[in-house]
């Protein structure tokens, strides 16, 4: 493998994100390094509820099953609450979130968590300087086949709730709908996937001396 060059992406180039090694966010961004260097993943942001004007009634829970390409990585969450018809952002108080891998039933968030934990709202503009709007996970979480994720947003209040949850995925650009119509053009990623065990000459096995990272 050639010497890894420095990563140039939004995290590195955004002067507003100040590097503070002791801070949670910076540690999380470091954990995203493999994902940031991977060339065949793209960002996909899923917005829930899928209708922005959807109101979660009092005492109710919004449930949604989303679908992403298998192998996608969930790397961050962001939650916001809105006020009435004006859609003015307010500090979240009543929304609770739970995210579960639909196939295995394993929770990505163990139990209902207060949406305020994933909030980027601030009444003071100065407080947002140098902050990352997303709430990155400590380690990006892979969504295996069939790539379905259950999300629940519960309203614990006695009045209705308007909110928005953003789930940030890095989704593999694998072609999943039939063969490549270009036919004779070599498609290295698909042949890698079809082989089922994606080693290429010179790459190391899973239990090899690669530090256990992959």
């Amino acid at each position, binding site marked *: 493998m050639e010497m890894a060059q420095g990563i140039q992406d939004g995290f590195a180039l955004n002067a507003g994100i100040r590097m503070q090694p002791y801070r949670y966010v910076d540690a999380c961004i470091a954990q995203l390094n493999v994902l940031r260097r991977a060339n065949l993943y793209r960002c996909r942001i899923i917005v829930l509820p899928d209708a922005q004007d959807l109101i979660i009634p009092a005492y109710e*829970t919004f449930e949604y099953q989303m679908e992403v390409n298998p192998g996608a990585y969930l790397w961050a969450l962001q939650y916001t609450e809105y006020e009435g018809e004006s859609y003015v952002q307010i500090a979240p108080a009543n929304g609770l979130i739970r995210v579960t891998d639909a196939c295995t039933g394993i929770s990505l968030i163990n139990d209902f968590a207060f949406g305020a934990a994933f909030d980027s709202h601030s009444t003071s503009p100065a407080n947002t300087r140098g902050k990352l709007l997303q709430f990155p996970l400590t380690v990006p979480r892979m969504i295996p086949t069939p790539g379905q994720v259950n999300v*629940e947003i519960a309203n614990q209040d006695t009045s209705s709730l308007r909110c928005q949850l953003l789930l940030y995925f890095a989704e593999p650009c694998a*072609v999943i709908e039939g063969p*490549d119509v*270009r036919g004779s053009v070599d498609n290295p*990623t698909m042949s*890698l996937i079809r082989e089922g065990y994606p080693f290429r000459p010179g790459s190391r096995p899973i239990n090899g001396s690669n530090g256990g990272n992959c």
Partner: protein
Amino acid sequence: MAYPRISRGFPYGTVNPAQLIPPNPWTECLIREQFMWENITRLGGLDRLCCPAKQSGENPPFIVMPPEGRTYKSIGSVLVGDLVQGTDTVVTSFRVPTGYDSVITQVLNLYTGAGFIEGSGMLTWRIRINSPWLKNYGAIDTTLGSLQSPCMINRGSVQLMEHSLVRYYVNISAAGVAALDPTQRIVCGFFGWHYPQ
């Protein structure tokens, strides 16, 4: 020029880079991780690999009560006369014991006297698990089940984690205060089992 097929999630007319660009080592690394986890799933999941003695095909403990499980009935009641109009009052509650998970399989809520009109809003029952309200059970305005025959939970069961606090509330409206006999009682109950984690 023949364009490649559109893959799911890509805007129509956009070329999917996976058809044109070879994966770099980091992409390979991530694909390898995906296959590792899919192999684990194919072999029966982490449960099967970590506990090979476990019988395959066994029903999970939240579907069928295991031999080491313990059934519970949490039934409580309050006098109608003790209810405060428009205020949620806890009728019964329980906390999942340490070292156990639980399921609720049946519930009941009823008014013991006469004069209650189903669905009228005189009484509203609610089930709360820790902070959120249980889906579809946050505003019940009808009787559910009876003491002899409680009502099955919609989804078959509700799973609860260790130390979860489960509460059954009732709320009486002005119409309920006017129409219902204050010497009669509101009864609520949970039925299910605890099982070791």
